[in-house]
Structures are given as C-alpha cells and as structure tokens.
C-alpha cells in the first residue's frame, strides 16, 4: 500500500511538473506572437546563444568527426568495407552526432546561463521591477530567449556542427588513413540526402526549444537565494539534456522509421 502511494506521488508530481512546463511554454509562445516585440533583446540573445557558442561546438564536433572516422576505419576493415567510411561519417554526423552533441553542449552552456541569470533576477526582485515598469517579463525575458534559441541552434550551430564534424572525418581520413580527397568528397556528397539535412535541422530546432524552455522555466521559478539559483541551474541542465535525448529518438523515428 505504501509502495503504491509512493508510486502515485511520483506520478502526480511528474504530471504536475509537466503541466506547469506546458502552460509556461504555451504562455511563452502566445507572447512571441503578440506585440510589443523587443528586437534589441532578440538580437542580443541570438549573439549570446549562436555566435558565442560557435567555438565550443566547432571544436567538439571536429574531434568527434575525426574519432568517428578512426572507429569506422578500424571496424570496416574487418570485412573489407573501408569505402563505406565517408558515407557512415556523413550520415552519422549529420543525422545524429552533429545535432545531438551540439544540443548537449548548448544545454550546458546556454540553459545553465539562462537559469542562473533569470534566477538571480528573480531573487533580487528584478523581475518584479520589470512588472512595475509596465513590462511583461514573459515578453521581455522569456520570448526573446526561446525564439533566439529556436533560430540559432539549427540555423547556425547545427549547420556548423555538421560541417565541421564531416570535415574532421575528412581531414583524418585523407591525412592519416590514406583516403583520396576527391573520392572522399564525392562519396560524401553522393550519399548525403535532403532528408538527412532536414532531420538534422529539425532536431536542432526541437533541441533549441527544450534548451531555452528548461533554462527559462527553472530560472523564472527560482525560489530562495543563492542556493535556489544553484538548484535551478542544475535542474535546467539536467532536464534539458533528458529532453534532448528523448526528443532525439522521437524525431529520428518520425524521419527514418520504416
């Protein structure tokens, strides 16, 4: 009986949190669609989220592409299928590793920053101050962050992650594994399809949405002082990462399930 009660409490608690986050998301979207708009804030967030995440995303996917090439080369040589290396690298990076790694890195960087900034604004009454200055915090703080992340993660960061990831595999394959540069590029271009790129960008947009949503939700609802900000930041990163991995599977099924 007690065991059932514990299960019940967990289920209700999960549903309660999901409901709150859902309402938060719907409210944020409704504020995105109605004026006033804050283009200056949107641009600032786009720079913060997109431009300043480029180095870490680029470096991560460059080395991942190279490591993938080494692994595929070694594995495929066991059954004389070395020629499949460029194909597996490009499909692996574009469909899966590029957007997922990019999402997880941006979750660590951006989701945490959003939760910490909004949480600090909450506990120092800056969000209350916005309200008293006739400014809706959802329009000024939440909507630009979510919109900027949905735009910048797929259109800048995932594109860069995919390109540099494939380049990492190419550089290693041509410089160390003896692959011909022209043949490698031809195989890559021949086997990369529009649906691969579409899936990659869709994943980027979905991941971007969850990264910003979790950062904003946990930051905006911070309680207490410095400890509350710390808890909000941790929760934001953990929940964003979980949602990225979960939604990655769902989007992959949507695009590629036979």
């Amino acid at each position: 009986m007690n065991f059932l009660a514990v299960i019940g409490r967990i289920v209700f608690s999960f549903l309660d949190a999901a409901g709150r986050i859902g309402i938060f998301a719907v409210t944020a979207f409704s504020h995105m669609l109605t004026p006033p708009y804050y283009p200056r804030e949107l641009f600032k967030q786009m720079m913060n989220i997109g431009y300043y995440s480029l180095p870490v995303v680029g470096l991560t996917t460059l080395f991942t592409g190279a490591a993938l090439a080494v692994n595929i080369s070694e594995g495929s040589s066991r059954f004389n299928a070395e020629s499949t290396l460029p194909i597996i690298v490009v499909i692996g990076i574009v469909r899966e590793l590029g957007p997922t790694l990019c999402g997880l890195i941006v979750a660590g960087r951006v989701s945490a920053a959003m939760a910490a900034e909004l949480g600090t604004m909450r506990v120092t009454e800056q969000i209350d101050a916005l309200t008293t200055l006739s400014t809706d915090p959802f329009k000024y703080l939440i909507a630009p962050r979510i919109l900027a992340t949905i735009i910048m993660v797929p259109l800048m960061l995932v594109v860069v992650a995919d390109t540099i990831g494939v380049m990492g595999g190419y550089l290693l394959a041509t410089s160390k594994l003896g692959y011909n540069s022209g043949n490698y590029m031809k195989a890559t271009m021949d086997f990369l399809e529009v649906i691969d790129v579409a899936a990659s960008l869709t994943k980027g947009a979905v991941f971007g949405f969850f990264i910003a949503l979790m950062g904003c939700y946990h930051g905006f609802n911070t309680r207490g002082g410095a400890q509350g900000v710390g808890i909000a930041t941790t929760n934001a990163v953990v929940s964003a990462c979980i949602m990225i991995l979960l939604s990655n599977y769902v989007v992959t099924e949507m695009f590629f399930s036979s």
Partner: protein
Amino acid sequence: MSDTAKISLKALRKTFGPKVVLDSIDLDVLAGESMVIIGGSGSGKSVTLKCILGLLIPDSGSIKIDGTEMIGISGAKRKEILTKFGMLFQGGALFDSLPVWENVAFGLLAQRLYDRKDAQEIAIEKLRRVGLTPDVAFLNPAELSGGMQKRVGLARAIAADPDIIFFDEPTTGLDPIMADVINELIVECVKDVGATALTITHDMASVRKIADHVSMIYHGKMIWAGKKEDIDHSGNEYIEQFINGKAEGPIKMEILKS
C-alpha cells in the same frame, strides 16, 4: 473617505498555506499624502505592497486605485494602471545587464514614450535630480556603491513622473548619513512630482522625515493609524514599544532558545 482615496484597501487577506500574512487589512491613502507603514520583520508590510502592485494575488478583499478595483482586473488594464506607479525596491533591483541610464529610462522606453536619445537625456536629468553626475549614467549598476544604487533606484522610480510612488525599506543597509540623504531626496522628489507616496519601513528616522500619516501592521493586522505628530503619544503600547525599540512589551519576537 475611501471614495476620494488614491489607494484604498478593504478587508485584504493573504495567506501562504496555513500562515495568515494579511488578516483583514484596511487602509486609505489620500492623493498627495505620504503614508508610511511600519512594523517588524515578517509582519506583512512587503506583502501588502506586492498585493497592491499585483505581484501577489490576495485571497480576498478589495484594492482600489483611483476608485478602480484592481483584483480580477484584466492584464491590459492593470498594465495601464501600473504606468501611474513608481517603485523603489529594497535592494535597488537594478537591471545589471543595462547601464545606469537605461535602468532609469526603462519605463519611458518600455512605454514607447521617447526615443533612446531623448530618454537618455531625461535619465541624466533625473540622475542629476538625485545628486548623481552624468558620468554615472554610463556605468553598470555593479560599479556603484549601495547609496548610489538607491539613488539610481529613486531616479528610476520618479523617471516617468508617476502619480503614486512606493518605497520598500528605502534606507535598509545604508549608513545613517546616507539614509538621511535618501530620506531628504524622497521628500523632495515626492513633492516635486506631486505624487502620493506609500513607504514601508522599520526605520523610525525615515518615518519622522517622510510621513504625513503612519499605520502599523502587527501579525498581519493593522493595529494603529494616525498622523505622524500623534505617534509619540498614541497611547498604543505596540506603537510605543516599536518606536522606542524595546525588547519588553506586547510585541513578542519569535526567538527559539536552546
């Protein structure tokens, strides 16, 4: 009396779980009057202010601003009424991502009353009004001392020439001289703007400097109200204990002793 009151509270009640924070509060503040609410920490002063501003929703009762009922009012109407308000927060609540002048001009820019150049000029003029030089306008709030941050907060509160200004513990954390400077500025600014002022504090020096009328909250109830001149011979033992700062008396501090 409440027909002509700028701010009128009737039977205001607010609870947090089982804890009753405001218990049937009545208060009238006349136009042009400076009302100070005194009371110990945790007595419900800040909650009263936040209920008036709509930052907290009361359980029951009535809040009228210029005769307009605020409880249950639409978001757009509330936003319109909030343009009448200015607020000085206890910790300043300055936006640390914006320079000082943008903090001061935030309400003007949010209401699209001025372009950025004109808003900056008004902000510098308001900063001068509170004794700060124009070079301060381009600093970040983190570069200012506590007293300067209070002054910037005051400049922000009066920037849009509001009808009603709220002061939340305006002298907390300041040395006695700076506290007196802030009190003087509050009196001057309120007179200049011709505003109605509602201050919450437990600093008796502030009360004597700022107030026309004084009310006292104890355990969520309004236990005394009268003119500032009457406070020293109120005949109320709670008031006498509070203004003399004595441990002995009807007000019992909740101190856990081991």
